[in-house]
């Protein structure tokens, strides 16, 4: 693997506002990287800096080994799919597709032949003479992608391309984009605020907050081993439950719940906890298991009242605890009513612990 895009110590200021703080990021050739984070975290600014639409204030950017920090967008050989698609409304689908080729001096005949080919695998063949206003949202999305892939650029940038589509279309376009990426062997950078999109599409996920990269890695690494409380809460749906706790001994904690239940934690080689040490326990809703009342004497178990039951048919979402702020997901259906008491347990290896002060994993 070679690096296709490299950012080192990249900073971006808008006046007094510090939008990107010392970003270091290496994007491997052929990889699909997702930049994810809440709105205002700097992910779009980072993407636009890659494209050259924003000037970086300090730091260095190379694309395919060439210094690109101050190169204008049109000389970076990068294609971008915009959130609004940014299709040229006065041009037909075909004219939109051949525009990047025509601007690079490709003859009209060759460009049109290429447009036919791209239209073939993006499902636009019958639509070449239409105008963007005559297309549906999904078709416009395809034109935007076709316009990006037609000239085989060094990298594809996607700026929340699915946010204007309805839920069903979003799921199918997700797969199409990933399939297109694999087919072309391209390098893609994908910005989204939707962690499901990031997790399902990307090889490498970069979680950002307030202009800082909080953690990056393979999707499941982020899920299994979040480095801090922010990433733990951001990745996974419904979000992880955070419960204040105190270490009882090196490998067990007492949760700050009625009855101060004690559960074991698997430190997996990490330093044992100091007795009395304050921690935040992170328990994923899908990792909590309901056990029968009889096994309530189990060392690992604790009991909570049910506040709210939401069922989707295949999954049941439960809100537990006196304030209902502990959530649990169960496959199948639960015949429960608000007020019922549930005995829960969790695998010691699935308990995440964070420092209550710094939020870092302990």
């Amino acid at each position: 693997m070679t690096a296709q895009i490299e950012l080192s110590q990249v900073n971006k200021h808008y006046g007094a506002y510090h939008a990107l703080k010392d970003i270091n990021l290496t994007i491997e050739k052929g990889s699909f990287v997702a930049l994810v984070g809440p709105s205002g975290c700097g992910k779009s600014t980072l993407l636009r800096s890659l494209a050259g639409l924003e000037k970086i204030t300090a730091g260095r950017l190379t694309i395919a080994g060439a210094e690109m920090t101050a190169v204008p967008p049109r000389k970076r050989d990068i294609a971008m799919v915009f959130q609004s698609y940014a299709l040229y409304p006065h041009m037909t689908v075909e004219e939109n597709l051949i525009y990047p080729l025509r601007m690079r001096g490709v003859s009209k005949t060759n460009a049109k032949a290429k447009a036919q080919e791209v239209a073939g695998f993006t499902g636009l063949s019958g639509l070449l003479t239409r105008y963007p206003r005559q297309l549906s949202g999904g078709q416009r999305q395809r034109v935007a992608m076709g316009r990006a892939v037609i000239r085989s650029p060094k990298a594809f940038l996607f700026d929340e391309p699915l946010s204007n589509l309805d839920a069903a279309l979003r799921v199918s376009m997700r797969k199409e984009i990933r399939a297109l990426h694999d087919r072309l062997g391209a390098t893609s950078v994908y910005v989204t605020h939707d962690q499901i999109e990031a997790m399902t599409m990307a090889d490498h996920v970069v979680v950002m907050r307030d202009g800082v990269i909080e953690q990056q890695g393979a999707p499941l690494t982020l899920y299994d081993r979040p480095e801090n409380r922010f990433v733990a809460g951001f990745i996974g749906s419904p979000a992880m439950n955070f419960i204040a706790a105190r270490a009882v001994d090196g490998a067990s904690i007492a949760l700050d719940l009625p009855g101060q239940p004690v559960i074991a934690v698997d430190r997996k080689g990490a330093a044992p906890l100091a007795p009395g040490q304050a921690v935040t326990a992170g328990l994923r809703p899908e990792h909590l298991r309901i056990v029968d009342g009889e096994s309530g004497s189990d060392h690992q178990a604790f009991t909570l009242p049910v506040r709210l039951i939401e069922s989707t048919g295949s999954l049941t979402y439960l809100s537990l605890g006196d304030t209902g702020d502990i959530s649990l997901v169960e496959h199948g259906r639960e015949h429960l009513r608000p007020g019922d008491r549930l005995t829960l347990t969790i695998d010691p290896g699935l308990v995440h612990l964070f420092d209550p002060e710094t939020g870092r994993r302990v």
Partner: protein
Amino acid sequence: MKTMFSSLRDGRGFDVGLVAFPMGFLFLLSGLPLLYNVVMSVQEVDMFSLGSFARPFVGLKNYATLFSQPETWPILKNTAIFVVASIAGQFLIGFGLALFFWNEFPGASWLRGLFLVSWVMPGLVVGAIWNWILSGDFGVLNYVLRSVGIISGNIFWRSDPNFALWAVIIANIWLGISFNMILLSVGLSSIPKDLYEAAELDGAGAWARFRTITLPMMRATIGAVVSLGLIFTLQQFDLFAAITSGGPNNASNVAQYWAWDLSFRQYDFAQGATISVIMIVFVMIASVIYVRSTRQEVRG
């Protein structure tokens, strides 16, 4: 009567009322005079028959007479030069300024607003000011042109037959620039910024972006501005009255000023009406272009 009021109260018929009032107003104050003008152009009208409507019908005799006069073609040619040169000047300078202020430098919108001052000035005042600027002996324009070395002797803008029409054209361009600029600025600001970003990433340079994005996206606005410009230039009367009065020897006379001169100074109402009818045809064409260009707005 009672049903009419109830239909007004329950909302039915209210739409008809809303349309009927302005339509009636337009018919009374624009439609009827227009028709009256057309009728006069096929009648024999003099001072004594002015008060009555039943005047001798003469068919197209007024039109024949008009085109047999030696000054008709030169005046129509002047009108064409005036319209084309004024619109070209107003549009090109106005578009240039609109593009300039589009760069959003500090104070851009404030400065752009100041340009509107020229548009709210009465034509007669503008004419009076340009009289001073264009003055042959002590005018600022001659002074500037002499200082730069473009001319060696003074040009008598208002009294030289070669320059009289251009004197009015220069003043009219100045008067129309701000209107063109404001309308074109609105058009420019309605083009989504991401189109330019997409074009830039697609490899388009500044000139290519102007040619492939700005101009086509501005087509509707440009159509509207040019056709409104045609209507306004054909209406321009004050500047002629203030600067040259159509002289010397009709060198700067145009159809609209001539029509007024014939009707209200020579009392040849039929000829004045005939010229007006010819102008109506041109304004109608401009109106159709205007309506069509605003209807076919490009939407994303």
